[in-house]
């Protein structure tokens, strides 16, 4: 079951993201940032049982959902016409992430989200959520608050 699911994702990535191959390449140029994000022992996100997260990360997921990011990046961030964020977030720094969110990459099809109040308020939570997805710590799909 799980196996066939994964194959679908792979196919959609390969087949439908040919036109944005360049995005993936440029993403890999970004400096690795993982270590900087949890400095002073402060966790970027908190997660329990894979689907219960802290308030900030929850708002990040809600932002992901409200802005319909899955339309390009896939329901599980696996990539579609937009790049896989599971992969991109392994390398993308928080600063670069913020920059792309605000200014977009219009030439590659990524719109700027600087006019969205939700993104302005929650972009750090969104970064935390996607980082958690990329780290494999947060499960795809619906999330709940930590009780």
């Amino acid at each position, binding site marked *: *079951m*799980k196996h*066939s*699911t994964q*194959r*679908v*994702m*792979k*196919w*959609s990535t*390969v*087949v*439908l993201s*040919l*036109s944005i191959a360049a995005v993936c390449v440029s993403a890999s140029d970004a400096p690795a940032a993982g270590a900087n994000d949890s400095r002073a022992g402060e966790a970027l996100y908190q997660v329990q049982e894979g689907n219960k997260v802290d308030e900030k990360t929850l708002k990040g997921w*809600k932002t992901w*959902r*409200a*802005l*319909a990011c*899955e*339309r*390009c990046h*896939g*329901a*599980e961030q*696996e990539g*579609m*016409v937009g790049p896989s964020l599971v992969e991109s977030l392994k390398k993308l720094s928080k600063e670069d992430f913020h920059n792309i969110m605000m200014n*977009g990459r*219009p*030439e590659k*099809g*990524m*719109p700027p*989200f600087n*006019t*969205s*109040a*939700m993104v302005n308020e929650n972009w750090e939570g969104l970064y935390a959520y996607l980082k958690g997805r990329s780290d494999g710590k947060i499960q*795809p*799909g*619906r999330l709940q608050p930590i009780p």
Partner: protein
Amino acid sequence: MKRQHCWVLLVAATSTVTVASATDLEMAMSKSSNWAAQAGDYANHRYSELKQINAGNVGKIQVAWTMSTGVLRGHEGSPLVIGDTMYIHTPFPNNVYAINLKDQSYKWKYEPKQDASVVPVMCCDTVNRGLAYGDGKILLQQADTTLVALDMNSGKVLWSAKNGNPKIGETNTNAPHVFKDVVVTGISGGEFGVRGRLIAYDIKSGKKLWQAYSTGPDKEMLVDPAKTMTWTNGKMAPIGADTGIKSWKGDQWKLGGGTTWGWYAYDPKLNLVYYGTGNPGTWNPAQRPGDNKWSMTLFARDLNTGMAKWAYQMTPHDEWDYDGVNENLLVDLTIKGKKVPAVVHFDRNGFGYTLNRETGELLVAEKYDPTVNWATKVDMKTGRPVVDKKYSPGTTGPDVNVKDICPAALGSKDQQPASYDRKSGLIMVPTNHVCMTYEPFQVEYTAGQPYVGATLTMYPTPGSHGGMGNFIAWDAATGKIAWSKPERFSVWSGALTTAGDIVFYGTLEGYIKAVSTKDGKELWKFKTPSGIIGNVFTYEYGGKQYVGTYSGIGGWAGIGMAAGLTEATEGLGAVGGYKDLAKYTTLGGSLFVFGLPDTTSTATTALQ
């Protein structure tokens, strides 16, 4: 002095055309050697009288020639053929090529420079549904909401008009339509909170003639509260005042959607244009209580004034994204012993509707896929669907995931147009056989940002044949399926029926198929390089009949589905879902043209 003379003559000529005589488009459409409009005619029949290729010999047809379009995205629509020239189009950036049929060389090319920032605000791939022809012009509706009229002989821009604003999410995917001397176009952006409308231009000058919104004040909607009629308690009655505002909460109608990206039809006798409107703004029904008029509606409007003669809302207060944009076929039927000028519409919501196209009376509304479950039936007195609360995300409310709703958001049929077999009177319909889960949630509107508010997953209809599509023959007089041929994937390609007793369509794996109109028996198939989401067309040149199609997967079926499937396949077993598609196809962009083998010319080639 001389100048004045010319003016008088010109005016005389123009008025004659409007009143009686056939336009050059009408003359071109009357010859079956041409494919002069996307549907071949005004009535959306997609039928050809050509029968050199027929049920007896279609098994022998082979590739005559091919051409790359140079773009690797979803290829919807079809080329046009007028005389010795074929006009082909591409997805974004919407290039247009005129091809000399004599030697398949380019006569001219039009390659518009469009701002690429339009691409992220396009809903479901960067498709374009094709060109229109009329008054010596080729009409292109670009993605960036620019309508362009090109000289059919040179490709030179004769006029252009702007019909929307991509900065607020307005784009275009529809083909423009020419009816008499009027170019009709629409708008896309139902997922960005735009306000849908139909727009008409004078084909001579590009001057805007009228614009009719799908929601809002009567004046802006071009409806007359006393004269525009709708089906009410078993008869036609006036719609009343301000229905496009009162059926919404507050100002929600301003983000009301009701986009207009389908295939329009025209009845010259009644002078009425027929089209459907799309989903209401935000997919979260809790945010827009009311019937949300006139989203999800069939309209019949006067071609000259745009005034609506009648309207019929298929899905009041949508909770499923069942856009009402699908094509309307104008056919004359005998229903219960009475001859009726009918309009037939296969809605995304899974019901096949037959209405009187002159009056708007509802005659037939039946499921054209028996597994449709969101409504048990259409109440023929009220004209409203009887919704099953079990499959109603509006009833369960936000943040509740409703499961196994059939059909899925992309409908029992989407834009892929059906074809009318004039011989048998049956309609040949390419369909989807897909169900979904639907979880609405609260969203806020920001101009130019997605305004969706629901998470969906889609999967093959459970407990059925395992495939995601059917190709069916439909009796629109009785609302019954005559025959049904299961397909592994959604049939996202438009059908073509011919007097040769065959119907052609394409599949997402990339096959173009010919089947018998009598029973759906497969007579011929050919594998093209990519999945087919274009419409099959036919023409005659040099005494030979040709059949063609674009090959290039994409569209909602190619993009949205593949992603939505991930969670959905869990718990369903190894059904024949989209995972298999990768075995058959990849992105492409080409035109394929087929014909019967020409023994004489083969011999000549061999001698050379």
